[in-house]
């Protein structure tokens, strides 16, 4: 990557605009992941529509009692939904695009992960500090969030404790889990790594967990975007594109 991380750039004291808020690697991987995630979400919904029923264990079909159903029409006439019509089948391109986007997401995540560990991004920017984790540190941030009073891009020079914990949870729990449960649905993957399936209770359990992790990731996305709006949309977006928030002159 051409541009450096925060530590490699000389920062004149007091001049915030000189320090990239996000390194080039973080910015590039952020936007590639955004595109891949949106493609995965749309195609995932399309695939779900062909069988909007969920099960627990190894197997499940229309002859099986579902764990729960999504009350939507289906794209297959064989699924009893209670609706008098069948939606058009979108599974072909949805599956092609879902897996292609999954590859993009995984390769991007590997690059980001290696960068995060070796360039100190996780340690420096995401692991909460001792002060963050103190009662006072946490309660101040939580109180600010409850009042929807977000620090602007200019006020906040680093992530607060809620951001750090959330990002770490998304990066190290939700993302690996959604990839793992996705792979579990693959019959070839299950043949090579059977215990990766059985430890979750079976392929239908993996599908159900995949669905719930997707909901968690989507909630994260919604809150993430909402907070960006609350804290100055263009300034935040600009920081993630160009590396730094708009200067005061530019904003005027």
């Amino acid at each position: 990557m051409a541009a450096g991380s925060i530590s490699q750039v000389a920062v004149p004291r007091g001049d915030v605009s000189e320090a990239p808020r996000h390194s080039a690697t973080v910015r590039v991987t952020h936007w590639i992941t955004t595109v891949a995630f949106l493609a995965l979400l749309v195609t995932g919904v399309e695939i779900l529509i062909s069988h909007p029923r969920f099960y627990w264990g190894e197997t499940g079909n229309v002859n099986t009692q579902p764990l729960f159903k999504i009350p939507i029409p289906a794209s297959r006439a064989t699924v009893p939904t209670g609706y008098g019509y069948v939606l058009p089948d979108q599974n072909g391109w949805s599956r092609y695009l879902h897996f292609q986007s999954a590859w993009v997401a995984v390769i991007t995540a590997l690059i980001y992960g290696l960068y995060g560990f070796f360039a100190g991004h996780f340690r420096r920017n995401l692991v909460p500090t001792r002060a963050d984790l103190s009662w006072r540190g946490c309660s101040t941030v939580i109180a600010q969030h409850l009042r929807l009073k977000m620090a602007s891009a200019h006020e906040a020079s680093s992530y607060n404790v809620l951001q750090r914990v959330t990002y770490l949870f998304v990066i190290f729990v939700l993302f690996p889990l959604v990839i793992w449960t996705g792979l579990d649905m693959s019959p070839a993957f299950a043949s090579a790594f059977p215990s990766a399936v059985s430890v979750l209770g079976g392929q239908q359990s993996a599908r159900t967990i995949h669905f719930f992790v997707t909901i968690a990731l989507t909630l994260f996305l919604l809150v993430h975007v909402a907070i960006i709006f609350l804290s100055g949309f263009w300034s935040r977006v600009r920081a993630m594109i160009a590396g730094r928030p708009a200067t005061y002159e530019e904003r005027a």
Partner: protein
Amino acid sequence: MSISRRKLITAGVATAAGASGLAVAAKLAKAYGLIPPDGAGIYGPGETLTYAAQRILTRHSLAREFRPDQISNPPFANAVDPLPGKFKQLQDDRFVGWRLTVDGMVARPASFSIAELKSFPRRSQITHLACEEGWSYIAEWSGVPLSHVLDLVGTSSQARYVVYRAIQPEWWESIDMADAMHPQTVIAHGMNGGDLPVPFGGPLRLRVPRQLGYKSIKYITRLTVTDDLKQFGAGLGSVSPEQGYAWYAGI
């Protein structure tokens, strides 16, 4: 923004290494047959990565087999394309006249009746059938391993794929030799202890348990061994890519 010369050189070297790495990877993939027949087009990179990765990691892996008490009761047959009048005639005659023709790159082209196939070594396995839609069931499938029939007719060492066709002319598929010679790929004529019921593909269905259900097509009548899928249909390997679905369904 200042970019140091060292960084510029590093970025240049990294880009060049990445580009030549991709070129080498593409060459290797082609040489080792890791590009699927529908590996062109906008979804080609993803399909090739999936097929190549699964072939490297799972060439010899065995599909999970289950205990008899895990068999789904009742299983789910799914909808079936309209069957031609010819099927009805054969069914009325208890499939005595059903033939499975084996041709293409084989030393001794042959045609087998159901009775002949039943006299061959039988493999029974309790495996999972998962549909790309998301539903699944477990059943015991029994039949003759496809590898046994291919050995019997003498498959050419140049063979790369086996094309298989259903009695409905619009329904055909193909698999590579890794799946064709796999011990669990069977020409199934039995299910859960009895003859294979018609809704589940009786009298003959090719079961490919390491791929999704749509590769296990029902009512098969013909196997063709080939080294080139271009000459079949639109040249994409099977009817699935022609309908927008991936040829490789291991995922």
